[in-house]
């Protein structure tokens, strides 16, 4: 038993380095994909202190819109542009109908409002697109398919899916772009101000309406990217919404307000989860992935209650 826990896994890692590398790669890809979802959450949290429960469904919604348009004969790239437009309209609508009347309310109320939004989008999305899963038009969008295998040793093989590489590249570009946008611009500072105190932000002349429309739109774009990437992995269906839960530990681990935190958190969870499941999961019957991420996050939190890069929780009287 002790051997199984403390020695065997490491022996395996050394004996089958190709496989270990593959595990690391899968962990990396999973981490990147989680990070993409988490990024959407971070944007909105950073800008309003709202935990946007609807991010998961926005991912589905964006993916379905894209595929749905294509199915109706719109060329792939035009469909992409139209989808971006739809996300813009959605952002404006959310700002107008949900956020604006609820300014200055406690976080939990805003969270609840995004849950209402989730319900609405589920119903609306299924109403428009039906509940059937749809195939992502990855190829049509020019995303690479296929895979490359690297030989290692005699029978070793590390297989890299091109789509995964594309996902990683896109994620890194988005994170950098958003990071710069939010940290280096006037709007970035305003965002953080809004998250701290809506009323005070209003009083210094920050237009919450404008800020919210911008971030919801940005979150919509992230959702679209996420939808494309996740959709290419499995299918675009409402079941994808469940995957969004995976963003929670990532988010919490990285800290709700940090864009790099989303990536680092994603990677920690991705690596931890894959390695844990593959090398230790078998000991308890497998499937530990469903909670391992939370336990990893929990352990980190016990040392840093605000997450790795989160803003310190201010305690003062």
């Amino acid at each position, binding site marked *: 038993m002790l051997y199984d826990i403390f020695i065997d896994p490491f022996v395996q890692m050394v004996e*089958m380095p190709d*496989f270990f590398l*593959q*595990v690391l790669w*899968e962990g990396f*890809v*999973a981490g990147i994909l989680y990070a993409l979802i988490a990024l959407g959450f971070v944007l909105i949290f950073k800008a309003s202190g709202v935990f946007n429960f609807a991010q998961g469904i926005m991912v589905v919604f964006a993916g379905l819109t894209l595929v749905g348009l294509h199915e109706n004969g719109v060329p792939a790239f035009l469909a992409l542009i139209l989808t971006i437009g739809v996300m813009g309209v959605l952002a404006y609508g959310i700002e107008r109908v949900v956020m604006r009347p609820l300014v200055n309310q406690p976080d939990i109320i805003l969270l609840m409002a995004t849950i209402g939004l989730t319900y609405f989008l589920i119903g609306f999305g*299924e109403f428009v697109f*039906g*509940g*059937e*899963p749809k*195939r992502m038009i990855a190829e049509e969008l020019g995303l690479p398919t296929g*895979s490359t295998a690297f030989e290692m040793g005699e029978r070793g093989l590390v*297989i890299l*899916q091109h789509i995964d590489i594309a996902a990683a590249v896109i994620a890194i570009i988005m994170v950098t772009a958003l990071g710069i946008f939010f940290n280096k611009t006037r709007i970035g500072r305003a965002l953080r101000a809004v998250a701290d105190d809506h009323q005070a932000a209003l009083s210094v002349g920050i237009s919450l309406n404008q800020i919210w429309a911008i971030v919801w739109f940005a979150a919509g774009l992230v959702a679209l990217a996420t939808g494309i990437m*996740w959709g290419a*992995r*499995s*299918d675009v*269906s*409402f*079941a*994808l*919404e*469940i*995957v969004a*839960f*995976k963003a929670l530990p990532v988010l919490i681990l990285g800290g709700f307000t940090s864009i790099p935190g989303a990536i680092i958190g994603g990677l920690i969870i991705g690596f931890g*989860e*894959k390695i844990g*499941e*593959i090398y230790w*999961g*078998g000991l308890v*019957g*497998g*499937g530990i*992935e*469903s909670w391992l991420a939370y336990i990893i996050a929990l352990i980190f939190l016990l040392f840093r209650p605000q997450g790795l890069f989160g803003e310190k929780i201010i305690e003062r009287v």
Partner: protein
Amino acid sequence: AAEDGNYVPLLTYRTGPYAGSGIHIANGMNDYLQMLNERDGGIGGVKIVIEECETGYNAQKGVECYEATKGKNAVVYNPYSTGITLQLIPKAAVDKIPVLSMGYGLSAAADGNTFPWVFNVPDTYWDGASVAIKYIGEQEGGLENLKGKKIGYIFLDAGYGREPIPLFEQMAEKFGFELVKYAVPGKEMQNQSSQWLNVRRDRPDYMIMWGWGAMSPTAIKEAVKIRYPMDKFIGVWWSAGDDDAAAGGEGAKGYKAMNFSGVGSDYPAIQDIKKLVVDAGKSQTDPESIGSTLYNRGVLNSVIIAEGIRAAQQLTGKKVITGEDMRAGLETLDLTNERLAELGLTGFAHPMKVTCEDHAGSHPVFIQQWDGEKWAVASGWIEPMKDLVRPLLEAAAKDYAEKNAPWPKRTEACPN
């Protein structure tokens, strides 16, 4: 609503995470019954009153649908979810409405003596599991050659996927192969890379899958990704959807699955459906999906319902029957080749017969293979290993009755 017809509530799901599979089933069930209404004016001269109730594959909503519809003289329930089936089993005897769980649900319910109100023709999961192993044995040139082989089992980590495990384990011992299990948690359906990494490491000779909803297409994609030989990958009949296989693209070519309902749309009855129902705009079915595996599965389900009603009408001489009549009818169900031919469904299914003792019947199953675009039959009818399955079934039924003591004794007379 039901005074002038036989009321058949259909618990379906066209929404939620399992909608991808559920929609086709729902369409198939609905269309066949409608076709009977259109073509024959129903069954035995009375119309079938069809009502769908959306469950979203959620047990609570399923029960709610049941409660809302049972009072309208429902004749039979098809829950299409193991979870809902389990809730309905004890209620069936009390409310006197049979439950037809075709090829799913509680395997033990095949024991008609313990579960007079539950039917799971044509097969239980244990039948399926035994067929899978038998087929692999055939591929290897005999069951004795299974010795030393490694067979992987990837399953949805829920009652559904776990049920076949005892039989697999028993067979592993008996035939000397090694069973490796890969559980896919429901929440991780679309995120199976760990499981498939493990498959890659363990290199099983064959893979068997018990998947549903979004799990199946994802698994097939992942299998393609790790370059698993697809012709050694066999799914249960619920992982046999066209969309499931299509998701894997080119690479999915060669994937196999068990099936017990016909492939394709060349059957006269199905052509009738197309003409009278779908083309007439009376259904939501996408014409292209007619003849797909899950659609046909839905059709077969309705065939059994219809035949059950007909049998009940003959048995009782009534036109509008009750749940109790239906139960008796189902127990005399005998779907012969001749009858299938009459129905315009020659070769659509293996003949099936229900007896009072055996509500499943362990009917033969065939294997189909994906050719990159559609399914093609890849084997003859394979008999389940009844000798293994039946004792297990009976033991399970006994166990169920004990655990749920006091479980009522069968009081229903055997109609034949």
